């Protein structure tokens, strides 16, 4: 992969140098997390307790599944606005299979995950094959999937799902919910791969400069199709577990999740223009939002004011981040 000018884009050093120059705002999220964590620890008695931290981790661990595929897409400069709808639909579909068709949990889950992934693949196929704008297409599928969810939801009586489905989210390994363990395993494995695997690093090249990536023979379209499939699959998995946790279907499950994910990832240091972000940063971003909302609840800030705060945090972080980067670029 040596180019004529002798610069090797796959070379760790050159690439790090380039990235360091552009992304010094990258570690903002660690500072932010530290500040809010210390602040809450010292100002409240309830925050730094095992139960509290555990419940934050449990909440994040379920949404985290939906983040996995989304992270890949954001790094490549693509976006999937239908994650929230998919998150809602998958839970309802599993409920439908188990209640109406009397399937057991495993086949229902496999069938639903397969259908959702297939849908994601089709979306990815359309976007890459016809060079469409992913935001426009997934805006359509956002509405489409939400509609299907509403139709399926209304086609069978609203019930509390059976013990088998409910136990999915409650299953514990060594006293810890399996989703938390899964989250840490996934973060460690993927974080490692993001750092050392050339296969996954291609994702950053595509995000940084699609044309160059193409010239160097990276199969962008195949990787993008895979990422759209993965995004639908992981969103569906998260949705199934979320529905299992609340024990029944709700048309509002996953409503607006795409905005929460975008906020979390961007606060975590990703850029909508692509080329930045990573699985660890996504997790930190989601944790930050979860801790922020827990903190505001402890201070008895009403939920709607929390919404205002979320908006302010989103704009301010991006503003600071982009300005730090702009200054570094000039200097």
């Amino acid at each position: 992969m040596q180019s004529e000018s002798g610069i090797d884009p796959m070379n760790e050093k050159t690439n790090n140098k380039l990235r360091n120059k552009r992304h010094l705002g990258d570690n903002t999220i660690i500072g932010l997390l530290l500040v809010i964590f210390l602040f809450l620890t010292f100002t409240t008695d309830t925050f730094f307790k095992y139960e509290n931290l555990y419940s934050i981790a449990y909440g994040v661990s379920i949404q985290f599944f939906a983040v996995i595929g989304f992270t890949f897409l954001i790094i490549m400069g693509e976006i999937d606005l239908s994650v929230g709808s998919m998150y809602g639909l998958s839970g309802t579909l599993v409920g439908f299979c188990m209640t109406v068709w009397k399937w057991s949990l495993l086949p229902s889950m496999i069938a639903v995950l397969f259908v959702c992934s297939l849908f994601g693949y089709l979306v990815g196929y359309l976007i890459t094959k016809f060079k469409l704008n992913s935001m426009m297409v997934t805006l359509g599928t956002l509405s489409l999937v939400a509609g299907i969810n509403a139709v399926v939801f209304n086609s069978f009586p609203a019930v509390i799902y059976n013990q088998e489905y409910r136990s999915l989210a409650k299953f514990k390994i060594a006293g810890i919910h399996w989703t938390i363990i899964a989250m840490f395993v996934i973060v460690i494995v993927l974080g490692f791969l993001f750092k050392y695997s050339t296969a996954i690093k291609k994702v950053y090249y595509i995000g940084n400069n699609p044309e160059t990536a193409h010239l160097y023979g990276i199969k962008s379209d195949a990787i993008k199709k895979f990422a759209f499939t993965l995004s639908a699959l992981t969103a569906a998995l998260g949705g199934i577990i979320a529905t299992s946790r609340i024990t029944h279907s709700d048309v509002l499950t996953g409503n607006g999740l795409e905005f929460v994910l975008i906020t979390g990832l961007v606060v975590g240091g990703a850029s909508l223009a692509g080329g930045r972000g990573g699985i660890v940063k996504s997790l930190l971003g989601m944790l930050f939002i979860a801790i922020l909302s827990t903190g505001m609840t402890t201070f008895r800030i009403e939920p709607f004011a929390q919404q205002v705060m979320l908006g302010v945090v989103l704009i301010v972080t991006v503003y600071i981040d982009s300005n730090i980067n702009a200054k570094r670029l000039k200097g």
Partner: protein
Amino acid sequence: MKNLFNRFKNQDSFFSIVISAIFFLILAVLSPYFFKSSNLLSLQAVIAPRVIIAIGMMVVLIIGMFDLSVGSIMGFSGIVCGYLLGHGNSIFVSVLAALGTGILIGLINGLLIAVGNIPPLIVTIGTMYIFRGFAEMIMTSDLAMSLTGFPQEFLDFGDSTFLGVYNMVWIMLVLLVIIELVLKRTYIGRSLYYIGGNKTSAISLGFNVKWATIGSFVLSGFLSALAGVLSIARFQSASRYLGQGIQIDILIACIIGGGSLLGGKGDMKGAFFGTVFIALLVNAFNLFEINSLFKSVVVGGALVLVVFFDGYIYLRKMRALGKV
């Protein structure tokens, strides 16, 4: 004749005009209730505010951006207007304050995007959260008790018709014509298309992209606030659901009407017919007593189809030119 047809066929809003005409015919032929005056009046009350918002959204789309905060601006301004009216302020002051609120939020959006260099997606999601949050805070507090009982003249304005059509529809038509003329016939309007078509070259040609961005978002904020005021005049109260989730519908309507998130495309015919299509669709579900849940399936499907054909035709053109 053939030339004229080709011109009609090649404009961006072609698809939306055809599809709303088809829906209009289906409804007119198959449903005995469609031409009932109550149905036509309720259709107007649905279409007019949405088209007014769509006008602003289309202008923002033309410069290659989009505004997700329109629903929150509509709700918040409507509530501001309702609050002031309920507290005995004059109609003039209340409406002016509501419209001012819309302009101010639009200005915040525009400044953050043009001067702060933050992507429009982030900014407008942020202001969407913020002002929906403020609206909910007002509506869940004690203040919410006083958001009905508006002055009679205000209600009369929302309820009266001229030539069988609500006043707000006339406002909508006037706005459509004015903005279309500005877009197609003035220097400012044409420059918006240049900016949307190719931002880099527009900057190097000396177009003032910053002012165009700020202006478009201010217009969008103003029109959303206007839609909010007209809605509460028509429905006689400010509800917390005012404008909730409307941004996705409007954005989809504009894209079906020939706008593009990539910028440089779209006109007022598209803004109008795209919105009318969605309104007729919802109306069809009501008239034929089909479960209205299918609405978002059809709307989303239509958007995917439009985007697909658009991309397909563009790709074929590029292939023919040998650019791909």
